[in-house]
């Protein structure tokens, strides 16, 4: 903490880590306890510069719509009618409901989900997990909404995704980069990623973008844009594998030494299993990409080394998205690009751990850097899920859990629908779940069916409107925490800059106050700083970084690596001593584990499977356009949507190609109806050549705002998406058919 010109002025160095995909340094200028402005890292290189969202954070802290005190519902659920209550009243109510539901229905009836939000090591899912586990357990969730397809595939194919990601500066060693469904200019995917990619391009690397949209990343970084229909990425990858096999362009030595089951995949590609040879000509009508383009791309990729295939996690958020991630890993293995500088494990673009761990560790999913917790008794007594994998934790594999995408389904169906319990109480934190899960109308029905819903929030989101009790939480500027930069290696303390606004309080404070009300004596024997110190010191020892007291002095610790970190380097360098943690010790292109699951829609080798709601679905006669729900510059999911500085930058709109707009009489800026059987959104049209014909895009995260007819006028994409998961558990928000009409 630097002090400047008198004691009332200070500049606090902290880390913005707001579920945007990045983690960046903020320098917060404070005078008399009020944030005056926010600057970023302009110190030693590499600088970790924040984006527009971090720079606008002052408006978030002092937003006029910040929740300043606890609220209790007084009207019908969802009617947005609340009255102010004291913290004692709010906490008593929450505790009483937790006890009542536990006694009446058992602990499994308590369902809890905490997403990332602005949570870090301490004030996150781990704080609530500790409380609820001490209370006797609860139903937790499995499946990452962002990238379950990728997580499953890494666990099946590599046995793990720990240590799979390269540090961003390794792009400077790549000669060719495939940005597959990946727009890091928007999603950041770790601070400086687009900057490293720009430098790679300037040093001569060839960059291709495979995406239904001409993204900002494509526009700035790519030499060539290859438009592709949503949900067909696996088909293009399989056709690329065909080209490599047919032309003898794959690395047989690498496959022999490090992989299992390539022959089975080759048989599939060459048509030995189903009589269909998966040529580029086969993929052309599926993907919408000309066969010649696929052929050339395959050849370029196979003959330019090293090459990094970066499998964005968006194509994994489709039906059978796990096949796409498994196919990407297979291509990277066929080209021998795993474990080498400038290459890529190709498992997924974000969330794979690199040097020093990643955010997953802070969500209570890793082993280091979190609040400790006793075992969850609800899990203890359950078996494993049918699609559990050896490479994942027992907790993640538990049959007792509900997929995080399917909470509404579980609440509505319960035991009668095959779920392990009936769910009566839902506790949500760091999530605008109603807005962000597929099929809003179903979530509305589910929320109305609950006996009790408690929401921890900073703002009156569409989700909070349905709560029985809203607990106001503070932003990361108002508490102390710890964060890492992930694949951009740095660590630092997230420092409390100002006192909490209004009566808002931290996650830890809320859990500490609930504990005695739930009869838990020893929830916390440490102060906030005491917990932080123990978490950081535990983490520091493991990762050889400065301990808490050193970090407190330094604020931000930039790791100086001798060379860029390479994922799975040891496994490739010395496979005898470092086998992959799969059953065979190899990269499993064929997975016996998956084979034993016995689901034809989850094949043991990567295969293209036509999605539901594809262009070939009979439903396409009524709803002919494929909707994708992408990330937006000025939001991090649904966060930041309410900040005026950001709202004015870009209107929420639906992107539609002129070829689809003109026959519908739609001009740029016209308000259109976007609809299917699940709902309707009224939204302005952005007529652009930057999206392929047949595909429309509503950036996800705009807040659901139904009008008197039930149509959403807020631009919430999930009004339209379908609440259904892929066999491996992937969230399928990019598999959705709609029609668009001029309003």
């Amino acid at each position: 903490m630097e002090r400047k010109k008198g004691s009332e002025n200070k500049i606090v160095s902290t880390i913005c880590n707001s579920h945007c995909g990045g983690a960046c340094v903020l320098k917060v200028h404070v005078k008399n306890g009020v944030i005056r402005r926010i600057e970023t890292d302009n110190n030693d290189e590499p600088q970790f510069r924040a984006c527009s969202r971090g720079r606008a954070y002052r408006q978030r802290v002092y937003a006029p719509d910040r929740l300043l005190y606890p609220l209790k519902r007084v009207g019908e659920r969802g009617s947005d009618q609340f009255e102010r209550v004291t913290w004692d009243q709010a906490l008593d109510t929450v505790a009483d409901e937790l006890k009542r539901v536990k006694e009446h229905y058992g602990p499994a009836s308590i369902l809890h989900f905490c997403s990332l939000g602005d949570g870090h090591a301490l004030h996150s899912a781990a704080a609530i997990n500790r409380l609820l586990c001490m209370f006797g357990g609860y139903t937790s969730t499995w499946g990452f909404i962002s990238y379950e397809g990728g997580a499953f595939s890494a666990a099946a194919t590599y046995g793990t995704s720990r240590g799979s990601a390269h540090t961003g500066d390794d792009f400077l060693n790549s000669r060719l980069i495939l940005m597959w469904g990946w727009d890091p200019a928007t999603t950041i995917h770790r601070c400086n990623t687009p900057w490293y990619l720009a430098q790679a391009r300037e040093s001569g690397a060839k960059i291709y973008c495979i995406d239904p949209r001409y993204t900002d990343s494509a526009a700035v970084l790519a030499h060539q844009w290859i438009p592709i229909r949503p949900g067909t990425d696996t088909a293009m990858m399989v056709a690329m594998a065909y080209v490599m096999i047919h032309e003898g362009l794959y690395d047989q030595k690498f496959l022999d030494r490090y992989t299992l089951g390539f022959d089975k995949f080759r048989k599939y590609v060459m048509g030995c299993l189903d009589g269909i040879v998966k040529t580029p000509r086969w993929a052309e009508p599926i993907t919408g990409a000309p066969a010649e383009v696929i052929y050339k791309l395959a050849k370029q990729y196979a003959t330019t080394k090293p090459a990094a295939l970066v499998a964005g996690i968006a194509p994994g958020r489709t039906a059978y998205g796990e096949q796409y991630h498994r196919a990407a890993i297979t291509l990277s293995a066929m080209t021998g690009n795993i474990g080498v500088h400038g290459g890529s494990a190709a498992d997924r673009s974000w969330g794979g751990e690199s040097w020093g761990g990643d955010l997953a560790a802070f969500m209570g999913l890793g082993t280091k850097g979190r609040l400790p917790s006793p075992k969850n008794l609800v899990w203890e007594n359950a078996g494993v899920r049918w699609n559990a994998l050896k490479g994942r934790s027992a907790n993640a594999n538990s049959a007792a859990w509900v997929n995080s995408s399917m909470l509404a389904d579980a609440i509505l169906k319960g035991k009668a629908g095959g779920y392990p319990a009936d769910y009566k109480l839902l506790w949500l934190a760091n999530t605008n779940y109603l807005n962000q899960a597929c099929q809003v109308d179903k979530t509305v029905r589910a929320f109305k069916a609950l006996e009790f819903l408690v929401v921890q929030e900073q703002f009156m989101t569409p989700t909070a409107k349905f709560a029985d009790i809203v607990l106001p939480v503070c932003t990361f500027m108002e508490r102390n925490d710890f964060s890492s930069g992930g694949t951009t290696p740095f660590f630092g303390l997230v420092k409390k800059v100002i006192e909490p606004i209004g009566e808002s309080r931290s996650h830890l404070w809320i859990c500490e106050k609930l504990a005695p009300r739930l009869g838990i004596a020893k929830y916390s024997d440490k102060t906030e700083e005491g917990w932080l110190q123990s978490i950081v010191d535990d983490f520091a020892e493991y990762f050889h970084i400065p301990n808490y007291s050193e970090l407190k002095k330094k604020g931000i610790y930039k790791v100086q690596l001798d060379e860029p970190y390479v994922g799975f380097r040891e496994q490739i360098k010395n496979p005898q001593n470092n086998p992959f943690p799969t059953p065979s010790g190899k990269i499993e292109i064929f997975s016996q584990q998956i084979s034993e699951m016995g689901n034809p829609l989850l094949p043991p080798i990567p295969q293209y499977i036509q999605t539901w709601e594809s262009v070939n679905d009979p439903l396409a006669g009524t709803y002919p356009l494929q909707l994708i729900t992408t990330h937006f510059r000025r939001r991090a999911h649904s966060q930041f949507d309410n900040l005026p500085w950001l709202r004015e930058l870009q209107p929420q709109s639906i992107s539609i190609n002129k070829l689809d707009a003109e026959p519908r009489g739609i001009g740029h800026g016209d308000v259109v109806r976007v609809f299917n059987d699940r709902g309707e959104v009224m939204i302005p049209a952005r007529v652009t050549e930057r999206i392929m014909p047949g595909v429309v895009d509503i950036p996800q995260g705009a807040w659901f705002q139904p009008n008197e007819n039930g149509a959403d006028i807020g631009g919430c994409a999930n009004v339209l998406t379908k609440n259904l998961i892929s066999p491996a558990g992937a969230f399928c928000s990019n598999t959705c058919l709609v029609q668009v009409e001029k309003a």
Partner: protein
Amino acid sequence: MQIGFYFDQTRCTGCFTCVVACKDYHNIPAGPISWRSVIEIERGEFPNVFVAYLSKSCWHCALPSCIPACPVDAIIKRKEDGVVVVDQESCLGKESCGNCLKACPYDAPQFGIELNAKMQKCNLCIDRLAEGKKPICVDACPMRALDVGPVDELIIKYGGVIEAEGFIYSVALAPSVVFNPKFNPQIAR
């Protein structure tokens, strides 16, 4: 000496960080005033699309047209660095005058929504320059696409290209900027 901008159009991803950093630093509310803005240029037809961004503000012209347009000499070009600044006390206001806005081909003069709002615009963060720092937009850019310095030094460092997509160089005004422009020769301009 004339201070000016360098903008690397090949790097700009249109992320608006410069815009928001400027608003935060200069305490400008959401609304019509934006000392810095980013425009998107889209051309061509699917799948041959060309996209570029231009981050723009007052270009602190060597021969600014706003200065002779101002009837009360409220706009001043600083001798020491050529930065064009406004004396808001003397400014007559948008409705009473607004001559600077009409004179500037780059839409640099900015006005609030109130009646007879006084002109304001980019001042190149002269307070930061005095402290030896770069303007806030330069220090904000995650792609390191912006720079500021004496124009003759910028020309040596980055070359003397004075045109870019979305920008037309006015010989009469001599805006203080050099570019690394983004051009796509395949698509007719």
